[in-house]
């Protein structure tokens, strides 16, 4: 399964998080806006965990869009798309996400992105010190 995760919204338009995970090839690519920041291998446990979260969120049955609450501003939105040999589906979500299983999935993808960015930041700090 290929899972792509993109964020938009919030105060900084350029801070769009991108994550592209292929659980069959076990590869991950992260980016910000239109820039690719890095690629990595995905351990089999992590692939299994992502598939479990997608299944737990009942991803292919989720509504395609969830609009922001009336009057809301500066909120973040998340687009998740998943492709399998038999399915292709895209969901657009907006904060606050009330479904706990979907929140867990979004948190997982966000933290995977942050983990790789954290490593890049640490490397930058070492280079400048």
């Amino acid at each position: 399964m290929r899972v792509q995760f993109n964020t938009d919204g919030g105060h900084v338009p350029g801070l769009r998080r991108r994550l592209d995970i292929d659980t069959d090839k076990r590869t991950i690519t992260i980016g910000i806006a239109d820039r690719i920041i890095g690629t990595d291998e995905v351990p089999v446990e992590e692939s299994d965990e992502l598939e479990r979260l997608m299944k737990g969120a009942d991803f292919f049955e989720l509504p395609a869009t969830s609009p922001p609450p009336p009057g809301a501003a500066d909120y973040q939105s998340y687009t998740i798309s998943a492709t399998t040999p038999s399915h292709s589906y895209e969901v657009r979500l907006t904060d606050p996400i009330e479904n706990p299983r979907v929140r867990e999935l979004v948190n997982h993808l966000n933290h995977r992105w942050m983990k790789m960015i954290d490593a890049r930041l640490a490397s930058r700090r070492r280079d400048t010190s």
Partner: protein
Amino acid sequence: MCQRIGHRHSIFCVVPPHVLQAVVQNAEAPEDREAALNTLLIDGTQRTLRGIRLAAPVEQALAARVSAFGARQSAKHRIIYDAHNTDTLPGEVVRTEGDPDTGDRAANEAYDGLGHTYDYYLSELGRNSLDGQGGPLHAVVHYLQDHDNAYWDGRYMLFGDGFLMDHLTELSVAAHELTHGVTEVEAQLFYYKQSGALNEHVSDVFGSVVKQYANGREDASEADWLIGEGIWRDGIEGEALRSMKNPGTAHNDPLIGKDPQPDHMDNYYRGLDDAGGVHINSGIPNKAFYLVADRIGGFSGDKAARIWYATLRDERLLIRTKFKEFAQLTYINAWNLFPDGDEANIVKTSWAEVGIEIS
């Protein structure tokens, strides 16, 4: 009519006024007298409409209660919640009006930010809270884990702890978020393309002006005109989220990119990202406001922000108003507020400088 102030006593929902008066005058239990008095207070409008007269002692007690209720309504009423890094809203109440410092920086900054914003709107513009009716101000801190955002969900201000950002409870950001609540009450500027950029612009205007107010009614020439000053974590090249004085210069980092805000219509963003550029194109009116405030001089809350506030409340401001129409309204309101001064001409020339001509 069953709404209650303080003690809840549901039986009084259906009790006629003469019985409530008897309870006020004769009840042995203080809580029964209190509940009956509160019910009479809540029921006041309908009672007046029905022409019901109350006994003198009850009327006096009620008058005192109305006065106390009125005082409460015009006072700050802040409620700070801690979501404990979850999405459970609103979370645990950690500080309410008058409570001491909690020891948590985010909770205390949110509390102070709400206070400065409330004080500015009341003392400078005569507005009692977001709704103009003294309604409570709610803020949630520690929303989600490492969340790089602060936003307004239509009820609460929500502050993440940040990952690439830090210090999301900074005053200009808090005042910016609260002002979305004011805009929603006054104009409901549709959050897409130009009307959305105006919604963001109005929040930046009052975000910055509230900060200048809190800095002792700072002179426009002394203000930093930054939204979210010092918000980026160490290692990220940037001084703020946005700059009203110099749009497009607030951050420039290999990881997060360059601040994309234009300061002139020549560089207007026409894409669909960011709800059609609501945080991008707001740089254009932001620059115009900065020019107006700087040229008028003194505290920007004295004149420039009053012109913008009158525009926000102008019934001609529609939910899909565009930049040119908004600019025209600021010009009209400048004339109305300051008919003998040069303010309207300053407004006109400042908009022209960012590429928006007022006819």
